[in-house]
């Protein structure tokens, strides 16, 4: 069988260090302990009993509804949804909500954002080839999650473009042909194409390196990044392993796939003809103007060289000896003439003319219509014949020619069957149900997104650093459950949120809290639910939702927020983002450029990273710039105006009712008597103060925290 080698690694002595990693041991489904109905609670209650922890009671219905809404869809429950849940007294009331939310398209938007943090989604990364159309990869992830694509297929498709391990089929006449992948799965490959970037005007050949770093952290939970320059200090990953894994991706090249309709393409053909004629009309005079100056400068520069060099340079290339050619090459940078010195050599009138013509050219270039396209990766068979090498300091330009490597990966079987292709062989190994890392790493991520922290607390490091998890039994049970259920993520979500652990209150009586805290200061054993600061996106969405102003359309290009400085110089035309800023926060632009800030202030303030590195776990800071955003930003100010208007309309002029409604809209619960009094007192009978009330609610601690 194809994966026989996999089991061999489990007993194989590990290469670099004498470390036994629990995460590499086979997943054995542990028996579920007794003492609770839900298996998750059964595992946790054992720990509670052992440690002397007292579990908190269930959260009240309103709190639970807001929690599960924000968790599964990133959106707050509407007053109507609240009313429906509160009046539904059937035992299945909560399960019905869970099913409704998991079936909602907005669930895919919320969880795609989690995955894309891990998978390094960015709209821009210096000059990233895949930038135009990269959002189609995001759209694909949303689609995959909404269709409950099994996790193994989800990963396999991003790596290979195929959902199944079958890549060929035999025809009726006995010819083996490649199976055509499903057309939409083309967009899954944005995952790999995103790694191709140009920095310092140089193609950095980062694609295979980035692929290794992302794939190993995201799906294997092994941080191999530092094996790039030296053997990984603690984990059984050697430098050779790193470059073997890189060799898997070395044959990949990126390719642009036009997505335009035939009509668009033909329309562009005509426009191009017109532009080409315009360009020619400028280029001719420009060259005529520049030529004498360039020639003069060139001669001047040659004259500055030592005489023996001059003789060599003046020879034609054909008549130079090898040594002479080497010297000529050394002088090349000196003799190259850029537009700067060229302009300086011109008298003012010519310089002005030169600049005018150049501007005209730039202006023509900016008018070249852009056709929709998507950048994908392709296996280049010529490249595949070239040997791969280990590199000095991970720099692609510095191969160690005496250290060639064969494709492979850490923990790979001795004999790898590459007949289906390099990445395919790896992907089959990675996604096999027998791979102990694959399911463990995945269920731990899903858990983290529901509880704020993983059962294993370093989600992308299941190596020696991560240490033994406190919940080995529970992780293994979840991993085996995940595998047994055909890697259905939706099923795992439901399993987790249906547990008592998930439904607990964040607080209980003070003595119990203090006692629990003494025993388990980090709340590792979840005797209470964790209180969590909301991430940037649900904050953005909740503000717009309260104002009745949220556009929940699925997919499409990212949008930018006003206030960002325009790029200094545009080296490639940037597709203009649509002006509307009332879409979900998951679509706010992010990325990196040395010439300007791409990630808007709002996202930066709330700990969103730029997507250059995999982000397995966002930090959750509580900082003054966040407070300033909620106090003073246009976004909050405009939404407060709209919320006030909504309150005025929906409360029918009754200010006490307006206060209660405001609480329901913004916090998902009615106002207490005291809050109602404070609110009414604040309003002092003046409906004009409703905007102030809206502001107050957006600035409450409770608004940015999920209980």
């Amino acid at each position: 069988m194809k994966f026989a080698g996999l089991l061999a690694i489990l007993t194989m002595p590990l290469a670099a260090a004498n470390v036994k990693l629990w995460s590499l041991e086979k997943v054995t489904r542990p028996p579920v302990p007794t003492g609770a109905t839900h298996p998750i609670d059964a595992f946790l209650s054992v720990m509670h009993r052992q440690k002397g922890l007292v579990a908190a009671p269930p959260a009240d219905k309103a709190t639970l509804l807001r929690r599960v809404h924000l968790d599964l869809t990133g959106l707050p429950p509407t007053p109507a949804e609240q009313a429906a849940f509160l009046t539904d007294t059937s035992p299945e009331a909560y399960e019905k909500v869970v099913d409704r939310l998991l079936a909602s398209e907005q669930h895919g938007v919320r969880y795609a954002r989690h995955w894309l943090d891990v998978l390094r989604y960015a709209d821009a990364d210096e000059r990233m080839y895949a930038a135009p159309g990269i959002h189609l990869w995001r759209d694909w992830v949303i689609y995959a999650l909404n269709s409950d694509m099994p996790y193994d297929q989800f990963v396999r498709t991003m790596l290979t473009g195929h959902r199944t391990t079958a890549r060929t089929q035999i025809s009726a006449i006995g010819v083996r042909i490649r199976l055509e992948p499903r057309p939409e799965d083309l967009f899954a490959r944005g995952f790999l194409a995103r790694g191709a970037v140009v920095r310092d005007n140089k193609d950095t050949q980062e694609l295979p390196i980035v692929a290794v770093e992302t794939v190993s952290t995201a799906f294997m939970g092994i941080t191999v990044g530092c094996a790039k320059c030296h053997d990984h200090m603690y984990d059984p990953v050697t430098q050779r392993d790193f470059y073997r894994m890189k060799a898997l991706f070395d044959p990949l090249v990126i390719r642009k796939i036009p997505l335009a309709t035939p009509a668009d393409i033909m329309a562009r053909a005509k426009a191009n003809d017109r532009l080409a004629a315009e360009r020619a009309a400028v280029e001719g005079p420009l060259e005529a103007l520049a030529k004498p100056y360039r020639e003069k400068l060139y001669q001047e520069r040659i004259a500055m060289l030592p005489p023996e060099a001059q003789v060599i340079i003046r020879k034609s290339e054909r008549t130079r000896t090898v040594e002479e050619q080497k010297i000529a090459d050394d002088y090349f940078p000196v003799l190259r003439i850029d537009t700067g010195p060229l302009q300086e050599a011109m008298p003012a009138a010519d310089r002005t003319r030169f600049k005018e013509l150049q501007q005209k050219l730039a202006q023509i270039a900016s008018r070249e219509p852009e056709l929709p396209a998507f950048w994908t990766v392709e296996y280049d068979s010529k490249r595949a014949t070239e040997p791969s090498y280990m590199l000095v300091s991970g720099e692609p330009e510095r191969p160690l020619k005496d250290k060639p490597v064969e494709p492979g990966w850490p923990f790979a079987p001795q004999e790898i069957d590459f007949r289906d292709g390099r990445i395919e062989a790896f992907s089959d190994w990675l996604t096999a149900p027998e791979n102990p890392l694959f399911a463990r790493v995945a269920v731990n991520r899903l858990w983290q997104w529901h509880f704020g922290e993983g059962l294993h607390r370093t989600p992308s490091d299941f190596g020696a650093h991560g240490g033994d998890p406190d919940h080995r039994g529970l992780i293994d049970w979840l991993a085996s459950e995940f595998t047994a259920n055909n890697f259905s993520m939706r099923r795992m979500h439901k399993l987790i949120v249906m547990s008592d652990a998930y439904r607990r209150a964040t607080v209980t009586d003070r003595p119990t809290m203090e006692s629990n805290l003494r025993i388990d200061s980090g709340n590792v054993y979840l005797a209470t639910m964790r209180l969590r600061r909301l991430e940037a996106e649900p904050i953005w969405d909740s503000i717009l939702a309260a104002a009745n102003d949220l556009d929940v359309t699925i997919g499409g290009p990212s949008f930018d927020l006003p206030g960002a400085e325009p790029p200094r110089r545009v080296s490639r035309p940037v597709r203009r983002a649509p002006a509307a800023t009332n879409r979900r926060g998951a679509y706010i632009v992010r990325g990196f450029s040395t010439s300007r800030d791409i990630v808007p202030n709002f996202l930066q303030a709330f700990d969103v990273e730029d997507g250059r590195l995999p982000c397995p776990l966002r930090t959750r800071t509580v900082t003054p710039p966040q407070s300033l955003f909620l106090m003073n930003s246009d976004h909050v100010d405009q939404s407060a105006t709209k919320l006030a208007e909504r309150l005025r309309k929906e409360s029918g002029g009754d200010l006490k009712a307006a206060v209660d409604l405001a609480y329901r809209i913004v916090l998902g619960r009615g106002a207490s008597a005291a809050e109602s009094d404070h609110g009414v007192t604040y309003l002092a009978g003046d409906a004009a103060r409703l905007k102030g009330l809206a502001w107050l609610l957006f600035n409450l601690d409770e608004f940015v925290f999920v209980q």
Partner: protein
Amino acid sequence: MISRRHFFHRTSGAFLGSGLGAMLAADGRILAAAHHPPRVRSVIFLFMCGGVSHLDTFDPKGNKHAGKLIDAIGFGDNVAEMKRPVIPCFRTFTAHGKSGIPASDWFPHVGSVIDNIAVVRSLWCHEGNHFPAVIETQTGHRGRAFDHASLGAWVSYALGTANRNLPTFVNIGRPSSPVQLTGGYLGASHAATPFQAGEVPIPNLVAPKGSVPAERERQMEVLARLNAEFRERHALNSDIAARSQAYELAARMQLHAPAAVSFDTEPSHVREMYGIGPEATDEFGKQLLLARRLAEQGVRFIQICHAGGGNGAWDAHGDIKTHEPLCRATDKPLAGLIRDLKQRGMLESTLVVWTSEFGRSPWSQNITGRDHNPKGYTSWLAGGGIKGGTVHGATDEFGYQAVENRHYYSDLHATVLHLLGLDYKKMFVEAMGRTFHLVEEGSGPIRAILS
């Protein structure tokens, strides 16, 4: 000078921005790393983005080798033999002050305060391209495998704030890379807060149009009442405590930051010192005056990125003459800053560092331009604990490699830490199962330039 005790008192009594990390710092966990009395309270860190030519500024080499081909082996990515022609330097150098330290005709004003300055001519780093070199010189580490923190974040982490109304680490000007602002594994609460010279130094500082201050004040009171029950219920949660403090600091910044950054109280002769007014020097002058005002008010680490964005405007491949306007823009303000600090008695408690990710090559690129050179370059320091009028270290006869008293760039970091009362060996953080130091290579503080 600030006594250790006084220093500790100020810090531990102060309120710190945000997040648990910062609060622990305020509690003195990291301050325990402060093993000796600090010489300075604040650092003004001036980063010239793109790579300043040491050869045309503070490290004169004469022109005896001009036109010769020299061996550039080991340069950049070239492992093969490579010859490059040395180009003439067109600057004239003047020996300034009592110390007679030369500065080129591009830096006459800095020359006039040279007796306050220690010039280090023998720095080197590994990386020869902007992006990696900025990471290396800013975080003390090479590469992006870990989320390393920048120098300013380390200072914020270690020392906390000395002014409860302002952030601890401020950046002014556009950096070449976000790495220059990052709190990395120390947490976003230690990241730089970007300030700009002008009326609104940070986003959302000013209440929206139409908001009435009295009404806002009333709202803040109601907000406290409405938060009370929630805060009581979650009193054991450090995030909630941090949030109420974040609101207090935000409110205080809203109240105090505009005055802190306003130049209204600055007399015209002070503005003139910084070159504020004339177009060439106005922007940098304002940034430096803002830096001085922030230092005065206890901001620990004020970083100024000059000519950032892209590779940085100091990146003079095409023609070294592109340095000229940059020197003109910075020369007078730099001297003005040092004079102003001195006349206020602040130079003793402030450290000024002028630096760049690397220097430039003795050979030409495009005949009039110079290539990158991480193998030997210059930075200078002035202020508390610095022996002014000193030159330390030297490059070879071409100005290519540092050969005498060589200092890996981290030695500059160690020097900054030392003057802040921090021992670089004892300042570390546990993150991702590893122990990280800011300084992990090199030989420690550059003692020869310390007074």
